[in-house]
Every structure is written in structure tokens, then in C-alpha cells.
């Protein structure tokens, strides 16, 4: 294909742009389940064809990551983003661009009917071009989906590591679910920020809801405890379940921190440390007098 005075695709595109656009729109409208209005679709198709012509005019065809394709890429990226958000399926997104193939090929066929060799070469080139564009759109689509997943992950991570204030100067971090590095990181940051905010002396890390504790999780916990200590707060770990305690010992995991079997014991210890005491109210005393 490195022969001859380049491709004739740009010229063909330029002279029959309106027909190609019209054909394309007709094809898209013929597809079942169109989710966007006809006028919007026309707008989109029109601007894409225009940008495609601009891009082809001075750029090398089938090299869609070149600078001349930048405006077109921008439009496509925007489109695929919007479509992904509006809930289009990957197939629908890809079909949108792939539908441009037939109108384009039809024009090529009528323009180059006399030169079959040329026709084949041009068809291959423009096919590659359209494929490239649709792949680009698919990638955009995929990226938006991934962004959504990542955002949800962070949201879940934040939701799942709440810091609870139990008393003046006492915080609790109830951990639920499997601990991985990312979650521990979020939990650690939340806890340390809250230690500053509430001027905390003692933080209780409750792992009642953690199904397994392996060496990695233990290491994460120890890091949190060490960081809290550096800031001037003590940590108590509570809620280590019997099986987990056994596993930890068998694995040789050592938590060299104060640990209590359940949250209430840890809370009692914390209260004692901050100089508070829980006492029974005297029964003889009427409630109003208190």
C-alpha cells in the first residue's frame, strides 16, 4: 500500500460526505432499540464525519493515534463516555462506529469501480481505519466502566471502616470482612484522622467481624497500632475469635499489643485507662433526684 499518490479516501469522503452521513444515520435508525433521539444522532454522526474528513486530509490513514486524529478522538471519547454512563452495551457502542463501514464501502465501490485493485486496497485501508476507531471507542467504554467500579470500591471501602466514638477520648474501629492492604489503608487513615479530630487517648480495634487473620492481616493491624502509638494514642485489639486465636498461634503470628477477648472488656480497660469508672446507681435513690 506504500505505492501511488496516497489514498483517495479523503477525496471520496470529502465529495460524498452528506450521502455517507445520511446512509449512516439511516443504518443506525434501522437498528433495533435506539436509545437516543434522531436529532441527537444526526448531530453526532455529522460531527464525526466532519472530523474524520479533517483528520484524513493531512494525516496518515489508519494511524488513529496521530495528532491529526486528536479532535476526532476527543469526540469519540466523549461519546463513548456518555454512552457508557447512559447504559449502552459494549456491542451497541461498537456497532455505532462499525455501521459507518457499509456506507463508506458503497461510496468507494461506486467511485473506484474501474480500478478493482485500487478498490480492494482502499477497502482494506478504510476497514482498518473504522476498526481502529471502534476499538478506540470500546476502550473508552471499558474505561468508564472501570472508573465506576473503582469508585464503588473506594466507596465500599470507606463505608466498611467506620470509626465510632465510644466515650470522650475512646474510639472504636469495628472491622468487618476480609482485610486486604487497600482496606486496611483506608481504615488506618480513618482511624488516625479521627484520633486527631477527637483527641483520642485509646483506640479499640475490634476484629469480631474479620473471618480470617493470617500473617499479612496481622502485619496490617500491627502497622495501624504502631502508627497510632506514634501519634500518642494507645491501641487495644478486641474480638479475636477462638478459632482465629488458635490459627494465629499455629501460624506463629504474634500480636505484641494489648488484646481482649471482646469489645466490652476492651472498653472497660479503656475506661479505666482514661480514669473513668462504671458504678451501679444506688437503688434507694429515686430517679428524679439524680
Amino acid at each position: 500500500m506504500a505505492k501511488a499518490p496516497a489514498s483517495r479516501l479523503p477525496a471520496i469522503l470529502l465529495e460524498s460526505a452528506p450521502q455517507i452521513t445520511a446512509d449512516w444515520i439511516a443504518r443506525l435508525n434501522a437498528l433495533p432499540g435506539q436509545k437516543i433521539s434522531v436529532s441527537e444522532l444526526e448531530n453526532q454522526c455529522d460531527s464525526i464525519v466532519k472530523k474524520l474528513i479533517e483528520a484524513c486530509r493531512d494525516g496518515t490513514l489508519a494511524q488513529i493515534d496521530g495528532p491529526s486524529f486528536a479532535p476526532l478522538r476527543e469526540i469519540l471519547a466523549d461519546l463513548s463516555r456518555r454512552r457508557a454512563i447512559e447504559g449502552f452495551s459494549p456491542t451497541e457502542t461498537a456497532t455505532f462506529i462499525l455501521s459507518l463501514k457499509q456506507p463508506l464501502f458503497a461510496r468507494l465501490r461506486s467511485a473506484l469501480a474501474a480500478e478493482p485493485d485500487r478498490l480492494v486496497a482502499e477497502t482494506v485501508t478504510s476497514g482498518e481505519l473504522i476498526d481502529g476507531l471502534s476499538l478506540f471507542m470500546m476502550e473508552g467504554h471499558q474505561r468508564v466502566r472501570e472508573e465506576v467500579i473503582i469508585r464503588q470500591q473506594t466507596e465500599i471501602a470507606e463505608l466498611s471502616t467506620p470509626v465510632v466514638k465510644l466515650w470522650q477520648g475512646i474510639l472504636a474501629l469495628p472491622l468487618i470482612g476480609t482485610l486486604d492492604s487497600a482496606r486496611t489503608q483506608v481504615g488506618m487513615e480513618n482511624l488516625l484522622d479521627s484520633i486527631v479530630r477527637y483527641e483520642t487517648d485509646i483506640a479499640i480495634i475490634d476484629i469480631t467481624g474479620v473471618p480470617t487473620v493470617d500473617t499479612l492481616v496481622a502485619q496490617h493491624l500491627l502497622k495501624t497500632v504502631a502508627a497510632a502509638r506514634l501519634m500518642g494514642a494507645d491501641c487495644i485489639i478486641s474480638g479475636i475469635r477462638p478459632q482465629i486465636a488458635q490459627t494465629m498461634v499455629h501460624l506463629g503470628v504474634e500480636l505484641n499489643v494489648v488484646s481482649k477477648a471482646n469489645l466490652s472488656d476492651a472498653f472497660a480497660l479503656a475506661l479505666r485507662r482514661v480514669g473513668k469508672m462504671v458504678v451501679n446507681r444506688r437503688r434507694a435513690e429515686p430517679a428524679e433526684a439524680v
Partner: protein
Amino acid sequence: MDRIPILKLGEALLVTIQVDMHDRLAMALEEDLTTQIVQHTAKGVLIDISALEIVDSFIGRTLANIAMIAKVLDADTVVVGMRPAVAITLVELGLSLPGVRTALNAERGMAMIRNRIERADLNLRDEEEGGH
């Protein structure tokens, strides 16, 4: 060269780090502090790092060194006001500063030092009374 000011408060020395620490500044602080502890026979050193946003392993090690030096010279070191990000960084660097005492803010740190000084006085008095 810039130096971090060291203030004397009774038997304690107060250091507040308000600027970004670079290595030479940290070394100068270590040197100045050692001299001042000896000069004033200080019993406690309070280092406020609440304004410190960036630490590296060198600064972390310097803090640990200062604490150890102070211990040798019979003074307690309390590091106060460490920011969460700094604490995480130090832990990730493997520097959990085991010899350093910490407190949430300057007020509590000062209370810790004062407690320690009072307790030392009490012990001394007991010993004297026991000796008579």
C-alpha cells in the same frame, strides 16, 4: 544557617518544628539539643512536630537518635502532634520509634514530662528520708 529554636520551660526544653526539615537542619537540632540538655540539666524534651508534613527515613532516625541521646543524659523525650500521614509514612519505613514517647498534643506531652519530673522528685525524697 537556619536553626530551630529551643526554648527552656522550667526543667523541660521545648522544640517546635515549624519548617520543613532537611538533613542538615535535623543534624543541627540534634547537636543544639544535646548541648542545651547538658547546659540546663533538662529533665524532659518536648518536640512538637504538628507542622511537619514530610518526613523521610533520615528525619525519623534523627528523632530516634535524639530520644536515645536524651535518655543517656537523663531526660525524657516526648514527640507530640504527629500527623496521620507522617505516622503512616514512618511505620511504612519500618521506623516505629520504639524508644520515643508520644502524645497527641503539646499540652498532654507537657503533662507527661511534668508527671515524670514530679515522680522523680518524689522518689528522691523517699530515698533521702529512707537514708536518715
